[in-house]
């Protein structure tokens, strides 16, 4: 690669392509695109080194709207394509855009495998709990009993909990955010980029055509404070209208408590994103907001860990082999170990 000492600065406007954005008016995807275009110029990556790769689905149109390198691939396979690209070009900044159908249904296998291999990529999974592009069938994250075009009597599928699934796949960075909270989404995108390894970000995204309001308990002003729990490293887990509710860990059982009355902030669960056991418990905060005595839904970074990246070890093996055997000599290879001569 050529020497490029100074990285040419660019702005969010430079990330806008000449293509018309074709999502439905009011779609949550607009906000996610906006936040990505806002954050990326700040990250100090040369624009030409950025690649967006997507699969199929509404979210997967994303690369067409980002003035970077991009590939709109086939259903579920963005993670697999990104794995090959990252393995061969470790210096690139690769962003995978996928959805609940693309990344958890047809492409579920590749999602768990890219996480365990820990390629240094960012995976943005837009979860709208519905199939939008095929016009409204239930998805692997839709709730039990969901009535859709393909399930007139209600879905009998039990849904995935994407965060818990990724914890199970030994992901090294797991976070959740939402389309309706630009500041939070921006901060999570920054964190995802900052993490070396596969960063998994679940983004709650409203499909206002086929599944409108599915996340409103967490996103609307009237309920957000009571239903969404924003996790911050080293800080107690508090939420509520007046930030007067907290989470206490009773053995392995999380309970909601009212602060004051003898319970101070220091008594609460202090969030530690490096604690796998606690992150697993947090990932299981997955109650339906309609339930009595339910736990709030966590947002922010659940878990992060330093672990070697696949592409680094791949490079190391090549270096080790070169050290041991010298650079490959094609003539020696073609000749092999034993030859004979015919006169």
């Amino acid at each position, binding site marked *: 690669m050529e020497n490029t000492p100074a990285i040419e600065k660019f702005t969010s406007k430079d990330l806008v392509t000449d293509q018309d954005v074709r999502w439905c008016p009011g779609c949550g995807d607009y906000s996610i695109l906006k936040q990505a275009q806002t954050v990326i110029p700040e990250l100090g990556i040369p624009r030409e080194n950025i690649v967006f790769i997507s699969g199929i689905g509404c979210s997967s149109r994303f690369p067409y709207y980002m003035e970077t390198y991009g*590939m709109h691939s086939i259903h579920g396979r963005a993670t697999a394509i990104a794995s090959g690209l990252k393995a061969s070009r470790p210096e690139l900044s690769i962003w995978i855009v996928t959805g609940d159908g693309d990344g958890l249904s047809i492409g579920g296998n590749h999602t768990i495998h890219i996480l365990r291999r820990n390629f240094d990529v960012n995976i943005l999974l837009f979860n709208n709990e519905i199939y939008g592009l095929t016009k409204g069938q239930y998805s692997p994250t839709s709730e039990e009993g969901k009535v859709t075009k393909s399930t007139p009597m209600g879905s009998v599928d039990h849904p995935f909990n994407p965060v818990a699934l990724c914890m199970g796949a030994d992901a090294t960075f797991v976070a959740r955010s939402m389309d309706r909270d630009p500041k939070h989404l921006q901060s999570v995108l920054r964190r995802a980029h900052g993490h070396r390894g596969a960063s998994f970000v679940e983004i709650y995204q409203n499909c206002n055509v086929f599944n409108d309001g599915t996340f409103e308990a967490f996103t609307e002003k009237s309920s957000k404070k009571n239903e969404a729990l924003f996790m911050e490293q080293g800080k107690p887990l508090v939420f509520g209208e007046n930030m007067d509710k907290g989470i206490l860990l009773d053995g392995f059982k999380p309970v909601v408590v009212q602060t004051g009355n003898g319970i101070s902030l220091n008594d609460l669960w202090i969030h530690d994103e490096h604690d796998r056991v606690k992150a697993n418990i947090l990932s299981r905060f997955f109650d339906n907001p309609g339930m009595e005595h339910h736990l709030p839904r966590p947002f922010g970074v659940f878990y992060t860990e330093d672990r070697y990246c696949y592409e680094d070890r791949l490079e190391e093996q090549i270096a080790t082999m070169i050290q041991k055997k010298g650079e490959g000599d094609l003539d020696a290879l073609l000749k092999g170990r034993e030859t004979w001569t015919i006169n």
Partner: protein
Amino acid sequence: MERQNEVLDNVIIKFAGDSGDGMQLTGTQFTNTAALFGNDLSTFPDYPAEIRAPQGTLAGVSGYQLHFGSVEIFTPGDYCDVLVAMNVAALKANIKNLRKGGIIIANTDGFDTKNLRLAGTEEGKNPLDDGSLENYRVIRMDVTKMTRASLEGSGLGVKEIDRAKNMFVLGFLYWMYNRSMDHTEKFLEEKFGNKPDILKANLSVLKAGYNFGETSEEFTTRYSINPAKIAPGEYRSVMGNQAVALGLIAASCKSGLPLFYGTYPITPASDILHEVSKHKNFGVKTFQAEDEIAAVCSAIGASFGGALGVTASSGPGIAPKGEAIGLAIMLELPLVIVNVQRGGPSTGLPTKTEQSDLMQAVFGRNGEAPMPVLSASTPSECFSMTYEACRIALAHMTPVMLLTDGYIANGAEPWLFPSSADLPEIKVTFAREKNAGDKFYPYKRDEKLSRPWAIPGTKDLEHRIGGIEKQHETGNISYDPANHEFMVRLRDSKIEKISDYIPELKTEVGPEKGKLLVLGWGSTYGAIKSAVIRSRNKGYDVSHAHLRYIRPFPKNLGELLYNFEQVLIPEMNTGQLIRILRDKYLIPAVGLNKIQGLPFKAEEIQNKIEELMK
């Protein structure tokens, strides 16, 4: 004692035993020794799909056929001259392929009551005693007993001792064919260098087998096969899968692009991965993906980044890759897909050979998805055709499918290997500049109709590509009806245009005009060539031509076909090439089809030739 020495011009030996008897190793050792001596040769390993198939049964028989000689050898041979049968089942499974008067080397221990029962022999009958082998010369030796005797006091357990009995047979055959044991001794020293007692045991059993020939008065004749008079030069032995791996690495070196090999283990293609992964000092990256789809997708990702992206599989694995191959066709990125064909459909016959994926290669994708299809005819040709597949993929910005099959993938032959300087140049130029005023059009085309390859990291050429239909030149999404038809035809023309850049078809044997042309593709090469030579020697006007380029065909194919009164197309399928040829050239070709998981015998093709020309 006085021995006769008989000089032969070629010999076919079949090593057969239980899949745990080490017959593949024995065969390979004899092969390498023959190759180093300068014989021409061809081999055919034939083994069960199960790793440890039921012992002593017909299903568990593992075989290795070797044809070597002082003359040119094109096939592993129709009928063997020598059958090594380690047990009853091995004899029963192979006796029909032993020529009358041939030699059977029978391990008598493998003909005991238990083995007779396991092989399903009639109660109270033993083929060694019942006169059923009277047309053959039977050499009986109790290999197990003699192996144990020679290792008495070695301190090894019976199980370990018995594992060395294939060395006894090998030693005996080395004696019988006047071969030196040097190569195998060296091989054993490397293999068991850190297990001195096992090494010692194997070496002494090998010698015991040799000495048995030397001292036993039963054997009055030894045989010599002189070195072959083949093209002069330096040779090595090569197997098809190994040759594919070398072809990929050579193309990587010559093009200056790093090789990325994304694959998922499958019989009979896995050995390509094993070979490529040994050579990381060439900067090659191997990726054992989670499934076949991820394998091809990872290679597409690597190609997008400017690597030589390659994936390989066998039919059942090529099927799930189909959608992604279609994507690569739309993306117009270089990609090489190797299909080491095996018996189908579905899981089919994993360890047996077939040519039944030709239609899949040419047509097996959704939509109009044209792609070049190449095929290799022999183990060593797997090298040159792999190299050619890479050259075409890179020069024409397209995925390319290379077909080999289980027969040549595992078969070995001497290879007059090239030097790197002899290999054709592969020049790759990445796009660096905008090509449409102040814009970059990723689908603007050159004279070959191929598009520029601008890789991430190139300033100002940021662009998006994808599987949706795209506008000519700009590559923007387009649903315009006329544009779609234009693009479908354009993608087709681009592939057809490759025929300007590939060699014309010439006959292998016989004139370019005449009564009968036998046209083949892939691993039927040796059998067709032998058959045509034999028929020509008997005065028949017959020629042989062999296709390496199936999509597009060589430009002169039609002309060549029309030059003959009749065309015969032998295939190991129900007739796939013949359908494509009839469709394109409207010729009344005749098929000869064998779908038994086994290669053709030259005799079968010869009979058909002579029947057609009666």
